[in-house]
């Protein structure tokens, strides 16, 4: 491969961010029209109306947060049960050319928890245990629905801030229908077609047995309806690969263009949601500021990851070996394509991988870890990134509001005891789960066996695993075996708690602010769209993250980096 041209990469990144910002702006506007019901009334909305008639949904019947949350939970529970059934009886169902039997119930539970929570933590290899039907009707469907769930919550939170003196924050069924119908399906179809054009496969063929080239032994090439799943896997920040190798696999991500396309699809909805919020509020600057917060953190993370990989291992330099470390990276993507994909996938809760983080230099490998540990707010998962960010904003506004001598308010809503509680639950739940379970894994007998390495690197693998599950990212550091009973059960639990506790908390917050009056803003109000405030939110996010995980990171990647660079 060609040597790295730093200036070209900088130009590409600058262009990429510019393109993302422009597209996110317009897509944000589109999201706003979708969820304010502007499409539903038109001719295009006929399918939507037909669905309501069929299901007996009254689109004008809005719900209080408790009803919204209840319906959301019921819906996800049902989705989970159906997925579990499919996993258990796939042997009797069609589209199973490899004749896979039922999935082990314990693993099935983990898959269910993983896919309904938008985590897509995979303790199985898709190509060795799942039939095509399971992949399509089980996993791909959940990819749509879990992403839809996240977006619904984000929209309900946006509504809470734009309303006053009401308890209603929207109708879950209506929001879900609109998300799938107008946002996810069209994008998924376009994405799938573009991916197919790049060579991503889409078929129901049995696996191909090839003869080896020369003396090499023969290979089995798994087939399947990959493109349709790949597309929504990126768009919905799901990240669960059709194949075990995920987006490093040439049938999932064949070319540099498909690589950039996938990165773009991963970031599209999460980066559009802050803009949509601005349009909901009729204060685009407010939404733009949140986007800037995310974008700055994203660039910071990307530059760190890219930078440390660019520098490589100093010990190698001393041996006269130059060039960037390529272990764990795909040659067709190079440093830029790998670093950007890794940043995008862990900044959002996607968790798709085209690079093995286990092989990154320690501090570069710490970047995905930190992005996840910050609570997935740097764009974040579809919906979840936005609503978790709102949790951080509430904390930031609370302290900042005090500093200007007002009882704190955000967008005209007073932040009082209840909002404070809910915001804290939203942002701290995942972190607390990570701390407790990581420590627990080291205490229980045999817990350490899951790590392929020992010492600092092994600890990174463990920390990453729980970080990824609790924050519903789903990527793995590699080098970690999550198939032990303890990890399957605790992991399933962590994914569910890390998903639904924050969702309920932020819905409650939304319901609470919707019921408040909206106060006027003026020169005496804290400007939440100013540069100072943007810096402040970034500080709050980083400080809370650092304060919580500094000791852990010190004994993981930081210690490893010193060992590597100091040779001790």
């Amino acid at each position: 491969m060609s040597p790295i041209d730093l200036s070209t990469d900088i130009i590409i990144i600058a262009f990429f961010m510019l393109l993302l910002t422009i597209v996110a702006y317009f897509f944000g506007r589109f999201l706003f029209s979708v969820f304010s019901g502007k499409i539903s009334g038109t001719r295009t909305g006929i399918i939507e109306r037909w669905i309501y008639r069929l299901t007996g949904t009254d689109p004008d019947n809005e719900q209080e947060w408790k009803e919204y949350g209840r319906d959301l939970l019921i819906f996800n529970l049902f989705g989970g049960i159906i997925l579990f059934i499919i996993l258990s009886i796939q042997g009797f169902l069609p589209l199973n050319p490899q004749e896979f039997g039922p999935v082990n119930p314990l693993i099935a539970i983990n898959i269910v928890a993983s896919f309904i929570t938008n985590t897509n933590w995979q303790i199985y290899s898709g190509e060795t245990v799942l039939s095509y039907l399971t992949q399509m009707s089980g996993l791909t469907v959940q990819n749509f629905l879990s992403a839809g769930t996240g977006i619904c919550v984000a929209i309900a939170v946006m509504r809470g801030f734009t309303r006053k003196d009401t308890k209603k924050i929207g109708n879950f069924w209506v929001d879900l229908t609109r998300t799938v119908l107008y946002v996810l399906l069209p994008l998924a179809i376009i994405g799938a077609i573009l991916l197919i054009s790049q060579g991503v496969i889409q078929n129901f063929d049995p696996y191909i047995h090839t003869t080896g080239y020369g003396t090499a032994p023969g290979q089995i090439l798994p087939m399947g309806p990959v493109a349709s799943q790949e597309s929504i896997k990126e768009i919905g920040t799901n990240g669960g690969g059709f194949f075990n190798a995920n987006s490093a696999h040439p049938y999932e991500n064949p070319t540099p263009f498909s690589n950039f396309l996938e990165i773009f699809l991963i970031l599209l909805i999460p980066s559009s949601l802050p803009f949509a919020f601005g349009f909901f509020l009729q204060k685009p600057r407010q939404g733009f500021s949140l986007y800037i917060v995310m974008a700055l953190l994203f660039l910071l993370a990307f530059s760190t990851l890219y930078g440390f990989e660019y520098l490589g291992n100093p010990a190698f330099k001393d041996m006269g070996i130059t060039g960037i470390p390529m272990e764990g990276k795909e040659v067709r993507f190079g440093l830029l394509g790998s670093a950007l994909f890794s940043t995008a996938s862990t900044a959002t809760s996607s968790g798709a991988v085209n690079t093995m983080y286990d092989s990154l230099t320690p501090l570069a490998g710490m970047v995905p870890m930190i992005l996840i540990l910050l609570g997935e707010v740097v764009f974040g998962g579809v919906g979840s990134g936005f609503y978790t960010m709102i949790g951080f904003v509430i904390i930031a506004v609370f302290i900042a509001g005090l500093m200007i001598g007002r009882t704190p308010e955000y967008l005209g809503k007073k932040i009082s005891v209840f909002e404070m509680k809910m915001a804290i639950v939203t942002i701290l739940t995942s972190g607390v789960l990570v701390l407790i379970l990581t420590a627990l894994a080291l205490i229980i007998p045999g817990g350490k066996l899951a790590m392929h390495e020992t010492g600092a690197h092994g600890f990174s693998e463990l920390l990453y695993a729980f970080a990824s599950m609790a924050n519903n990212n789903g990527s793995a550091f590699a080098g970690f075996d999550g198939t032990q009973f303890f990890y399957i059960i605790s992991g399933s639990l962590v994914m569910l708690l890390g998903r639904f506790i924050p969702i309920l908390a932020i819905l409650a917050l939304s319901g609470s602010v919707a019921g408040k009056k909206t106060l006027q803003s003026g020169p005496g109000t804290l400007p939440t769209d100013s540069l100072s405030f943007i810096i402040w939110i970034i500080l709050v996010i980083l400080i809370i993250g650092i304060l919580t995980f500094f000791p852990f990171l010190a004994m993981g990647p930081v210690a490893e980096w010193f060992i590597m660079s100091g040779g001790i």
Partner: protein
Amino acid sequence: MRNGSSCQGGFETSRKRISKVSSFDIALIRTAVWQAVKKLDLHEQKENIVMLLVELGSIITTIIFFLSLVHIESGSPLFIGLVSFWLWITVLFANFAEAISEGRGKARASSLRESKEIIEAYKISEPKPDAKGILVASRDLTPGDMVLVRTGETIPADGEVVCGAALVNEAAITGESAPVIRESGGDRSAVTGGTLVTANEIVVRITSQSGESVLDQMIAMVEGAKRRKTPNEIALNILLVSLTLLFLIVVITLQPVSSYSSTASGMGSTLPVTVLIALFVCLAPTTIAALLPAIGIAGMDKLFRRNVIALSGRAIESAGDVNVLLLDKTGTITYGDRQAVSFIPVDGVKTEDLINAAICASYADETPEGRSIITLAEKIMPCELPELNEAKFIPFSAHTRSSGARRGDTYWVKGAPDAIIHEVSSKGGIIPPDLDRKVTVIATSGGTPIVVCLNNSILGVIHLKDVLKTGIRERFVDLRRIGIKTIMITGDNAQTAAAIAAEAGVDDYLAGAKPDDKLNLIRKYQAEGAMVAMTGDGTNDAPALAQADVAVAMNNGTQAAREAANIIDLDSDPTKLLDIVQIGKEILMTRGALTTFSIANDIAKYFAILPAALAGIYPGLAALNIMNLTSPDSAILSAVIFNAIVIPLLIPLAIRGVRYRAVPAGELFTSNLVIYGFGGILVPFIGIKIIDLIIAGVPL
């Protein structure tokens, strides 16, 4: 003897004693130190979970210290002992911060309480001074009871005068020794328990339950005894407790992780409990948790020193949020009385003649307007006053709407233009052709024209004007800059109101205001999402006061007004609303600034403690010791000591409060973010380094 005039001395001096408490004196500090020790009782700490956990940490380290002495626990007893000692000091400093602010309040309260001895009241059955009655103790009075209070007696409880009028000395609560008139009916009927009738007798209908009077509320507020946390304090407390629990989890989980790491690296050992507790205490937001009670109590105290009683902490905080102020014109924006500003003779009349006539017409006029005419005349023409010894005063009457003086056949009259014109023309006098124009000019400028005539000829016009209070204009400019809208309320006509509004620089005005208009105006602004503050004194104001977010009642107002309000100004100075807004803001700012500072400090503490604690396991981590601290023990100890001594160092800031400047919120935020945020990150790096250097210098 129904009560002693001996109380009188107590009343007059009580106020002076109150104001003495403002500085830190030795006795106060001594009491606070003792209180700080007494507050070590764990039951006392249950209100403050952060400090409770710190104290538990102190207890555990103390136990470890003793175990290490007898070698049951490993580790250097000196190090463990020192950490333990400084953790205790941290708790004591926090207790001291609370105790010293409580002490100041208590000192004030005890002087107030002196005026609240149990006294006997003469309870009568009907509101007549000669009604038969019985003697009861003041604490047995219930609302609705009537009591007769005579000269030299103390009013037993808050109430309303229903019969009679008396001079009342209210020094006990206002500190003002000049007695005020309290009479039945009208807006001066409210009396306060503990105040003294100095002349006449009145019948008072009791309106407050024993223990709930204004004085009781004052005592409770300044003592901080009954201080209930405001919603904002509770919310902040939730944040602080959550962070504390988070850090507790961090250090607890750190133990197995360090155990795994040391086994894996084959170096170092599991982190000792003493180090984990030290790390926990340093990370927990102890600074703000220790100072939070002091900030609240000090805020009350600050208001109290300005003679303002807030009936709840929430009221003061809301004052910080206000963005619309409704201000009565009279007394707030202008000095209540109109004053003469110029003499305008009609054509053909000399100014001196007009002034002379004006002096004569006003000579016996004791109203402030009359006095101001004389004052102005003397300023313009410092000459001897005309001889008026034999003159007879013509008093103002509603019928003639004029007043003046008469000597023999000569008379001087001044009055409202239409009244004088009517009088003069009815007696066949000539109306000067330019009079109308000159009168109109004054009226359009918001002034009041007074026409002066000598016998039956009109000499000219005196321009009376509402005079703005000194500095009020500048305050409105400040208010506008910080986003507070000012609305002037006046009964004047629109023209006058507009002129004064323009001169004072208020944002808007409500002219010809009727009592209902105020209420409607407040509702209108509230519906638009504004927080409205107003001052009021009359019964008419009560509904509006009850509706306003911040309602300040004048102490000389009616009981109805005082009950509807959430803040009472003992000086009855409506301008004070502006001070209240400022104090409200300062309390919140202090809270926010110290929270930011406290949390920002944690970064440096990590950099002090973590390399010290973990370098044994991974030697490379010693590179994180960016402060280059001497040894692991001194690094940990320095962080703990810094964490402790920062509390007393910040007590003065907590009590004085962060100064509020009248600049837009964005600017204020940026500067506070730099000072307390970035300052909070930097200061501990320097502080810990200095302490480390000192420790390194001490031979141990």
